[in-house]
């Protein structure tokens, strides 16, 4: 088991390093190892004194690669947490209506014509968080001790936000606004800049680290309410805390990248396939797998469109579906 854990860690570390290097190097202005060294050397020079490779590196490639990595890590980790907390292999960050809420928020900003991409990001974040608050209020008013209460509350809020999104699409200007809404709901890292990546890191990094730190309560919660209380863990308190942290991170990520489907669902299954267990370092493996998936999907999104940026969800779904089918067919009991 220890040997398998070590091999998994090495494999993922090498894969992530390779994908990050490729992501930093690939684009309409290719960079190489020497350019990376120059970029690090010229980091503190005034912008006017920086060379073109340095400007491309710090202005475009690094924020985009870091955002892809962070968002993927967030989605993979939170997917693992959701699947363990709800005891369902189909659970994903979309479950609590965050994605739908964030989509509604972003679409509202687009239709109202408020500001630029920053306002859209802010509205998306508020939409995602508002969904979480509504879900928690609904769970509380339903006396929610059961996992299914969270799932049902998530479905209710998600459906309401989707209905609102459809209304907004109906009244949106078909020439300008409708396309922007659709592009946002399909997810893309094309518009990522350091101004967006830095606040994302400030929100997601602490949330991700706290969740990784709290991996034991996640394990205990997956054993059920009675076992939790018998072993001294308050399930309602910890479930709410962990779900809030996960939703905060996913919401912040969705606000920057748009809705990216399937990473949160598929990464925990791949992690389980690689690591076999759901204790110990499982959540860290979920994070690494999520990061690798999104880095690879973003590379494909900017490389395969003949110069045009493609929505990243096309590739996460295209890669995720066959993987899920393979996992289903190789009789992993919890994927059935």
């Amino acid at each position, binding site marked *: 088991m220890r040997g398998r854990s070590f091999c998994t860690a090495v494999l993922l570390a090498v894969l992530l390093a390779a994908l990050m290097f490729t992501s930093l190097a690939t684009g309409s202005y290719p960079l190489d190892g020497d350019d990376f060294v120059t970029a690090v050397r010229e980091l503190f020079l005034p912008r006017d004194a920086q060379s073109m490779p340095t400007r491309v590196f710090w202005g475009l490639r690094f924020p985009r690669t870091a955002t892809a990595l962070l968002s993927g890590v967030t989605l993979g980790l939170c997917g693992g947490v959701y699947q363990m907390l709800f005891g369902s292999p189909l659970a994903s960050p979309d479950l609590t209506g965050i994605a739908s809420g964030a989509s509604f928020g972003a679409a509202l900003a687009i239709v109202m014509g408020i500001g630029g991409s920053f306002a859209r990001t802010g509205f998306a974040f508020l939409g995602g968080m508002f969904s979480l608050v509504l879900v928690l209020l609904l769970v509380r008013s339903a006396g929610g001790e059961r996992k299914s209460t969270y799932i049902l509350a998530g479905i209710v809020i998600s459906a309401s936000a989707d209905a609102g999104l459809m209304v907004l699409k109906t009244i949106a200007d078909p020439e300008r606004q409708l396309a922007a809404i659709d592009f946002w709901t399909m997810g893309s890292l094309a518009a990522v800049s350091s101004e967006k990546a830095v606040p994302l890191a400030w929100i997601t990094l602490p949330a991700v680290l706290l969740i990784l730190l709290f991996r034991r309560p996640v394990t205990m919660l997956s054993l059920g309410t009675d076992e939790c209380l*018998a072993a001294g863990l308050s399930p309602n308190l910890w479930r709410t805390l962990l779900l809030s942290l996960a939703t905060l991170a996913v919401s912040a990520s969705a606000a920057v990248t748009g809705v990216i489907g399937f990473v949160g669902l598929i990464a925990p299954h791949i992690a389980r396939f690689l690591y076999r267990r759901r204790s110990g370092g499982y959540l860290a493996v979920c994070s690494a797998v999520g990061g690798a998936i999104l880095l690879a999907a973003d590379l494909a999104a900017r490389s395969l469109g003949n110069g045009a940026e493609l929505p990243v969800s096309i590739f996460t779904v295209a890669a995720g579906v066959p993987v899920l089918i393979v996992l289903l067919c190789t009789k992993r009991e919890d994927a059935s």
Partner: protein
Amino acid sequence: MSALHIENLTAGYGKRRILENVSLQADAGEIVAILGENGSGKTTLLRAVQGIIPLQSGTVAVNGTDLASLNTRKRAALVTMMPQDHPAAAGLTGMDMIETAFYPSRGLFGTPTAADREKIRTSAESFGIAHLLERDLSEMSAGERQMISLLRAAVQDTPVLLLDEPSSALDFNHTGALFVLLKRLAAHGKTILLVLHDPSLALRYASKIVRMGHGTTEDILDNRMPDYEKIEASLRMLYPDLRVNRDPLFCYTETSSYKEATLC
């Protein structure tokens, strides 16, 4: 001072009352068996003592400490429960589950030590389930999960143990191992409150038998110096055809291992 002191406990689900004014005392080293029909409030009593459902009134104290004054973790250092349903979480092993027993003493970041794991292995070997420690919970039978859950409760090392139908899914040999283990724990001063559906096991191993009905304790029978006529009369309220045989059909002795439990 009783190790476990339940006084006028009233509890239920929401506004619905299940238990009404239940009072019960048990000393250190006692095994108390609760018998009763389905729906009589046996499981609810254990859940109320553990704090899984809130008390509407009354008190529960362990070694003089009112459990209502403690948070969940401190409470779990004094009392723990083996619930009726046992988790089948995929991806978690028997060892993963038993290790949660150290949460009350070690806290959030205190990972179990090598000595803790050795303690688990030794306990598992004496209970005959060492082979289950590395097996996935989702690949175990209901009885195997029950044994893992029981071992988690035993390893938690609390003064009071609550066991909800601990032998319901166990085979004959492991039922023997269970009661040998319970007697050993009682001999070390643990107070054990267990729900049973088999009066013969209660008569054989419990020092006190509680007959529950309609959400309250209808009778509490002392089984240390048994008055068989009185016990038989009381238990016939539950089991009309029951006859108490002073020579039990079988017993599990301290000397017998789980493999050697025989008729006697």
